Each structure stands twice: as C-alpha cells, then as structure tokens.
C-alpha cells in the first residue's frame, strides 16, 4: 500500500508521499500527486482506494472552501480535521464507506502553531508529532521514535 508520512516541527510540518499507484505487482501510474491543498494553511495527503481518494478529498476541499465563502474567515486546522473525520465516520456507518487514509497538516494563524492530524479509514483521528500510513510506516516510525525532536531537523535525515 502506498506510503504517506508527516513530521511536525515547531512551526512547520513536512509531508511526504510516494507517487505510485499500483495493484500488487503492476504499477499503473508512477506520477500520482497525493497532496490536496484545502486552503492557504492546510494540506492533506491521501492514500487508499483510488477513486475514493480523489472523490473524498475534493469533497472536503470544496466544503472547506465553501465555509470560507460563506463566512469570510477560514476553518481552523482543528475544525477542518474534525469535519473531515465526521464525514468519514458518517460514511462508514452508511452505504459504501470511503476507503481512505489521510494526513492533514495545517498552521493555525490564531493559536500560532502547526498541527498534524492522522486519520485512518475507520475514522479514528489523532493529533500527532509524527505519523505515517502504509507499509512505509513499519520502517519509518521506529526511526522517528528514536530520533524525533520538535525543535530541529536531524542532519542527513528527511
């Protein structure tokens, strides 16, 4: 399964994703963009069932944009994440569920801090300093557990 990962530092977040769309050993596309910007301060990285990913991400992005049009101010990262989780949770308990895992990174202008939200296809959500989805997580999480420090980037590691 595709890998996306995110690391939160003091006032910025790094999100990374692979660009492969594959089914088992067949690589169907190798230039996929898995990032969906929701606003000036919000970025979402999505992986999972292809088709669901685009549909769901565009739905969330347009709803976030609609909020801004209606109210003149934007949704905060926490509110957007809660909204996204609510949409995932509702769809999970009805018709067909959206089979998507995502990471949402945002910078809250009011509270002046960076927030990274991890959400999986069962609509569980957590604000974390670092997280990853996919097979890559097995490799990366151990590294981050050992070397993560919020204040600085360890040299030579991305």
């Amino acid at each position, binding site marked *: 399964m595709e890998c996306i990962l995110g690391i939160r530092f003091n006032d910025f977040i790094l999100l990374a994703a692979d660009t492969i769309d594959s089914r088992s050993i067949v690589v169907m596309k190798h230039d996929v963009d898995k990032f969906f910007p929701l606003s000036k301060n919000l970025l979402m990285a999505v992986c999972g069932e292809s088709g669901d990913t685009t549909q769901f991400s565009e739905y969330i992005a347009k709803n976030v944009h609609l909020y801004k049009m209606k109210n003149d101010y934007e949704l905060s990262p926490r509110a957007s994440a809660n*909204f996204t989780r609510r949409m995932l949770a509702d769809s999970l308990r009805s018709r067909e569920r959206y089979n998507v895992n995502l990471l949402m990174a945002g910078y809250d202008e009011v509270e002046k801090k960076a927030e990274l939200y991890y959400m999986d296809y069962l609509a569980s959500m957590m604000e974390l300093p670092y997280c990853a989805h996919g097979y890559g997580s097995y490799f990366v999480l151990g590294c981050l557990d050992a070397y993560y420090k919020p204040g600085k980037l360890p040299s030579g590691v991305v």
Partner: protein
Amino acid sequence: MARRYDSRTTIFSPEGRLYQVEYAMEAIAHAGTCLGILAKDGIILAAEKKNTNVLLDDENFFSDKIYKLYDDMVCSVAGITSDANVLTNELRLIAQRYFLQYGEPMPCEQLVSWLCNIKQAYTQYGGKRPFGVSILYAGWDKHYGFQLYQSDPSGNYGGWKATCIGNYSNAAISLLKQDYKEEISLQEAKALVVKILSKTLDTTKLSPEKLEIASLYREKNNTKMSILKHEEVKRLIEDQERVEKEEEAQKKREAEARPST
C-alpha cells in the same frame, strides 16, 4: 383594506408589505423590555421581568428571560414566551450540531444567521405564522471577540453596540444614542443599563425583583456568564437613585441662582 392581505403570511400587500410580520413586531412592542450593551471587556443584557406574581415559584430555575445557548453565548427574548422557548431550543441544537461537526464552538454570527434563515422561512412558505419573538444575542468568539446581535420576526438581524427590544425600546434607544460611549467598561455598562431602564420603564420605582441583569465576560480563556445577584442589582439601583437626586438638586440650585423675571 389591509384585512384582505393580512391573513396569510405568504402574501404581499399591494403596498409591498408583509402584514403578518408587522403584526408580530407589534406583539413584541408590548412585551417586557430587553436591553443589551457591548462593553470593551464584556456584554451586559438586562431584562424587565413581567411575571412578578408572588405565587410564582422562582427559586428553582435559572432565569425568566435570559437563556444560555452554549458556553460562549447567551440570549434574551422579548415577545411570546412559548415561541421563545421553541426558538431557544432550536438555537441550542444548532450550536451543538456545529460543535459535533467541527469540534469547536460555533461563531456567534453564524448561529444568529442560521436561526434567522429559519425565521425567514416562516414568512415565505408553509402557511404558518411568524415567531412573535425578538432576540438579543450576546456572545464571544475567537474571530471577532464580544458581539451583540438582535433578530426580529422577519428574519433580519444586525450587530449592535447597544440596543433595546420590547416595551419602550424607542425611548431607551434614543437615550442610548446620547449616553453610550465606545470604550465603555463592564462596570460602567451595568450602571448605564440601570440608568436607562429607570428612565424609560413605566413603573414608579425600579426594584431588583423586576429586573434581571446578566453579564458575559472572559476569564482565563473561558467565557463566563453570571446573573447579577439581588444585592448587586439593589446597589446599582440605589446608586442610580442617588445620582438622580443629585441631578435634581443641581437643577434646583441652578433655577434658584437664575435671576427671576
């Protein structure tokens, strides 16, 4: 002439008026006064209690006319009480639904706007009468700080620095125009509220039983609302009476100092 066009809400009159909406506003003009003042560190809402019957059991409920909608907002109503109950219940539901969806408190104007869209629907479809209630909303949110809104049966709403609804609201508003100052503090606003009400209400003398004053303020990143206690209201009224006596005495002195014709 008007009779032909006023029996259903969904019809305009030939002059382009909605009579049912106007009649609803008439109902409110006879109801107990509500006054709201926006201070720089909070908001004061004051309401005239019309039901002061001694037989009423008033020990076990929060308030007659002031309702808490959610942690960051309260409202006060003027008009038909049963209509008000339905609307405040709806306001509470709307606020909690927002909180369920977004995980943070609903911004004030959005709540007012949402309810006003519902109120407007009752003036356009359904064949039902409009709600005979005007509402004063006092709230805080992270976008615009303290805010005071007023809505009426037509579904219109506006943001105010100070306003009044119900009985004698016109007199109160003209007094507010003179006496309201931009950077007023919460304490000054409490005194101003008592001053305005004592000058506009019909009763010969204000008393704490007839008045309900609530203040909304922020403390340590939380919004708090408190209804002023009996003693504090009494003290504010006494202070106001003292000021009035001094003004009267001053006027008398000036009249005597002037040479008579």
